[in-house]
């Protein structure tokens, strides 16, 4: 075990931390916004909306993220009508392909987390809200969403941790985030153990931070029955 190599790699990999965080944070924000839309569609009375949303969640949760990243980056680029369209401005960039893949992936999982949070709320509360004369939107905003989000905190912190780890997969589409840099170091040092230990320490530290932050958040907001 070459400890100085671990340390050197550690410093080099840290150069990719900003890019990793950019990808993770952007995907989480976009994915969260998308997930609310997906939940609304899923719960909609319109059968087209709910079917679409159900199919979307099923296919995204049912396929590996690696395949989704490959499909968006290499797959879509095979069609000349996509390469000739305005979409190519975004899809040409590995960074955006990575963000899109992670966003789509987390939106499906987050939608299920929020939906299960909503399901935990008793029907009686909705009926009471209606009896008070609240509109559907008001009921959603005042009664359902606050409770569903609080209910979802533990599961959502888990999703963030999964996303931090999943972000390492985008290194396969030439993005030089932390894992990309690690793989590059390995290609010249031929020492995968030392380099991946260094990368692993950084991921572990990030997830440690998330765990601590969410422990506090849970203490403050989580509902206990």
């Amino acid at each position, binding site marked *: 075990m070459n400890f100085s190599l671990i340390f050197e790699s550690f410093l080099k990999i840290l150069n990719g931390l900003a890019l990793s965080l950019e990808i993770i944070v952007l995907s989480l924000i976009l994915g969260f916004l998308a997930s609310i839309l997906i939940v609304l569609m899923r719960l909609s009375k319109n059968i087209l909306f709910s079917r679409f949303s159900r199919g979307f969640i099923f296919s995204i949760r049912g396929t590996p993220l690696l395949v989704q990243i490959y499909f968006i980056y290499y797959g879509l680029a095979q069609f000349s009508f996509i*390469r000739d369209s305005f979409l190519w401005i975004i899809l040409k960039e590995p960074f955006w392909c990575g963000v899109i893949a992670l966003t789509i992936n987390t939106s499906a999982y987050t939608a299920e987390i929020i939906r299960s949070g909503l399901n935990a709320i008793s029907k009686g509360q909705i009926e009471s809200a209606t009896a008070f004369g609240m509109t559907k939107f008001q009921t959603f905003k005042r009664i359902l969403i606050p409770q569903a989000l609080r209910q979802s905190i533990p599961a959502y912190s888990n999703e963030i941790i999964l996303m931090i780890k999943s972000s390492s997969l985008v290194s396969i589409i030439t993005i030089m985030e932390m894992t990309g840099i690690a793989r590059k170091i390995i*290609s010249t040092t031929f*020492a995968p153990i030392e380099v991946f230990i260094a990368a692993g320490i950084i991921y572990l530290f990030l997830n440690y931070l998330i765990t601590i932050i969410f422990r506090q958040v849970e203490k403050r907001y989580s509902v206990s029955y």
Partner: protein
Amino acid sequence: MNKLFAIIASLFFVPLTLSADWTEVRIGTEGAYPPWNGTNAAGELEGAEIDMANELCDRMGVNCTFVVQDWDGIIPALLNGKYDVIIAGMSITDERKEKVDFSVGYMTDGACLVVSGDSQMASFSPSKESINLFNTDAATKQVTGQVVALLKGKTVGVQGGTIHQNFVEQYAPSAELKTYSTQDDLNLDMGAGRLDVGLADCGAFDDYMAKADSNLTSIQPTLSGGPFGDGVGGAFRKDDDDLREMFNAAIKSALADGTIGRISKEWFGRDISM
């Protein structure tokens, strides 16, 4: 319970190299770099190096099995004892010699620059068809300078951890370098138009360029020497000199009687034996 624990623990310490008299040899290859070593539709390994390795094993009178390993980890896995020799289009370079020992070279292919047929670079015509970077004459230097100028500011794609990556990093540091884990991915992105230039062994582009809808074309000069090393050889652990000598003898005899030349013609369409 203690006995069970001892048995399980001992499993972790079984020596990986079982015999030193070499009746069984495990060959590590990538299986993703045709026509050197590829995988056919049935999932079987095929290619010039696969045929050559089988021929060498016959000559040495040993039983050979192939182990497929991603390029990323191909040297670490050799050092860890997953197999005994790498035969995977690996060029003999000083950087790799620090970790492994090489057999004599058996084949050598120049490196080709590939561009889109529509690009301005497609009409690039240097004064020499090929350059060997070990040479220091004026003509070689001039063409090298032209290539370096051509790559300046371009997006260049290579497979990661290869001589081609080393060349771009050393000679054209101002190019935007993209590294791929397999040649296939590099070809796909070349076809998608995300790259200005692709750089790999000339033969590695042939299959993809032959596809009907491919608009790629290779430009001169072909490159060799310098960071491209001294041809392709088998790589061995540093303490397996006996095995390396066995391969050296077999390679030399197969080169001398033209067998490797014939195999390379079959797969590359030209004789690239050394």
